[in-house]
């Protein structure tokens, strides 16, 4: 199983990420991807941007562990996670998760699992910006529940 994890300030290119996933051998029949974008409403209304902070070193270890866990539960031929940090504007890309599998059920499940588990166990923190206002986002019960559903 081939995987890669990046935490970076700069934007990512889904086209490039997808091409790299496609290059995963003739046994891959399914590629599932997820991209998270900055939305105009969260805890605040009228969100104009986000500030994302993380714990360098720990983040990469945690996300690598989630990919490893996914690959023990499902057929995972290649997996890729990119997460941005720093200041982001409305509609900017935040996170990309892509998984190649032989079959679609495994690709969907592994991709959704990695994304759900990342939300509750990878050390990222999000601050919503709305004009002059700043607000550290609180953890959502719905996110904890989605992660527990995989157990």
């Amino acid at each position, binding site marked *: 199983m081939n995987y890669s994890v990046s935490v970076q300030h700069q934007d990512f290119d889904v086209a490039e990420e997808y091409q790299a996933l496609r290059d995963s051998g003739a046994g891959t029949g399914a590629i599932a991807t997820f991209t*998270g974008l900055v939305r105009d409403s969260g805890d605040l209304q009228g969100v104009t941007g986000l500030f*994302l*902070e*993380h*714990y360098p*070193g*720990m983040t990469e*270890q*945690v996300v690598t562990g989630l990919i490893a866990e996914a690959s023990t539960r499902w057929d995972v031929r290649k997996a890729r996670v990119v*997460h941005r940090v720093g200041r982001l504007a409305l509609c900017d890309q*935040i*996170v990309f998760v892509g998984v190649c599998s032989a079959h679609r059920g495994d690709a969907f499940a592994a991709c959704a699992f990695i*994304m759900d588990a*990342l*939300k*509750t*166990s*990878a*050390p*990222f*923190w*999000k*601050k919503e910006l709305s004009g002059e206002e700043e607000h*550290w*986002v*609180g*953890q*959502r019960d719905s996110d904890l529940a989605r992660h527990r559903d995989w157990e």
Partner: protein
Amino acid sequence: MADDTTLTVRFFARLREELQTDTLTLPLDTPTTAGQLLSTLAQKGGPWAQLAGGQPVMIAVNQAMAKPDTPLNGGDEVAFFPPVTGG
């Protein structure tokens, strides 16, 4: 610089901002746990008092999730932060 007789303590996100501290280096004289360290830091008062209760504080020791009863050894990196909200 962490060595066998010190702890590196890191804070992130809302805690980092409210404590106006991202890293502390503390001497480690006697065996302790992550929870005991939190209580000791809370005694500094002011914004530090929140470490003793109120909002939930998550703990990592050497970059892995930990619990209040996780033992701390010289050279360890301990981190305290709010519940994570990435993605």
